């Protein structure tokens, strides 16, 4: 009798534990900590991305060797075989911006902030550069600013698949040299992949292949 009672109690406990586990599993759809632990801009040597932009294809690859630019060790990213120089720390990702005037004089050559890390919904950042240059006897006021904002967390579908927990980043870039050019673009960054979609006024650039 006593062993039968113990058996019944045991099965009740097991049932309660199973019900608790089932409830927990059903409730598990929160991915806040998943996003907190993922790399949204991996620059792994040898990685390759292929994007479709209308009928054109953009090809990106990370070089296996690094270079030193202005005393900073940076990763070389080839965009359609043209080099771009990036630095990545724990709190930011910077790109080496090189802009020249119509006469060929260098207006800007520096590492500018592109992404503030870690990405958190609602966070904003801005990078500004000002300079006054003398070009062929004329004084030119030059400025370059890039403002970014983490606007949303979305799922993105491309030919490479569906990517979940993507951050949508809205950017506004302004160059004054001395004419003002303002461009707006949006990027979607997927965990462990990087940019999966880029939207500009000219159209959408979508990831079609990623290799690492």
């Amino acid at each position, binding site marked *: 009798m006593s062993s039968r009672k113990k058996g019944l109690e045991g099965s009740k406990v097991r049932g309660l534990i199973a019900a*608790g*586990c089932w409830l*927990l*599993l059903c*409730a*598990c*759809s*929160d*991915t*806040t*900590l*998943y*996003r*907190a*632990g*993922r*790399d949204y801009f991996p620059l792994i040597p040898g990685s390759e991305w292929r994007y479709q932009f209308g009928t054109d294809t953009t090809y990106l690859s990370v070089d296996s060797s690094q270079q030193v630019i202005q005393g900073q060790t940076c990763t070389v990213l080839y965009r359609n075989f043209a080099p771009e120089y990036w630095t990545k*720390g*724990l*709190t930011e990702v910077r790109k080496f911006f090189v802009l020249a005037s119509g006469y060929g004089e260098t207006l800007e050559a520096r590492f500018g902030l592109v992404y*503030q*890390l*870690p990405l*958190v*919904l*609602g*966070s*904003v*950042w801005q990078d500004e550069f000002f300079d006054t240059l003398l070009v062929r006897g004329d004084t030119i006021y030059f400025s370059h600013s890039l403002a970014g904002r*983490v606007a949303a*967390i979305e*799922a993105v579908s491309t030919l490479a698949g*569906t990517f*979940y*927990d993507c951050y949508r980043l809205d950017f506004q870039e302004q160059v004054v040299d001395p004419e003002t050019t303002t461009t707006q673009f949006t990027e979607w960054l997927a965990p462990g992949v990087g940019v999966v979609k880029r939207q500009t006024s000219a159209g959408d650039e979508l990831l079609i292949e990623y290799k690492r």
Partner: protein
Amino acid sequence: MLVALTLVLVSGLDIGGHVGAAFPTGGLERAHGTSAILGASLGYSLGRFRGELAYDYTGLPGRQASSYHLSLHEVTASLGYEFLHRPGWGIEVAAGVASGFAQRSLGTGQESGWPNAFLIGLKFVQREGRSRLAAGLDNRLFIANRSGMGLAVIADLFSIQAGVGYVF
């Protein structure tokens, strides 16, 4: 009769607090540093078994000088078993489930959620009079059912804790 029943129910009940160090792993270590963990617990012992309801708080800072911060509040229900049970001490293994509130913030940015976790622990326990001391290791495996990916461990928080309790 009521007093006797109350005494029976209360005997084995303990209440206490604990402190420790939390070490983010499983991807979290990329952007988060080590932090202190603070908590309070309510336990009920019955022989080698002990059920516990605990609250824990930890605030993980960013890895570099940054205003980034991850706050984690959790309520844990666990069941422990002293596989080594001696009159004054024992070694306990515990397993449980945890549910909590997580908030990430950076400047004006803020995102929050309700993560869930499985907990496993190993503790050394010492009992003397009305005091109960415990020191050991806890590992929280955060799980999520990601769209299109299925159920998976998404983060891991390992901690070393020590606590003291008053036994009624």
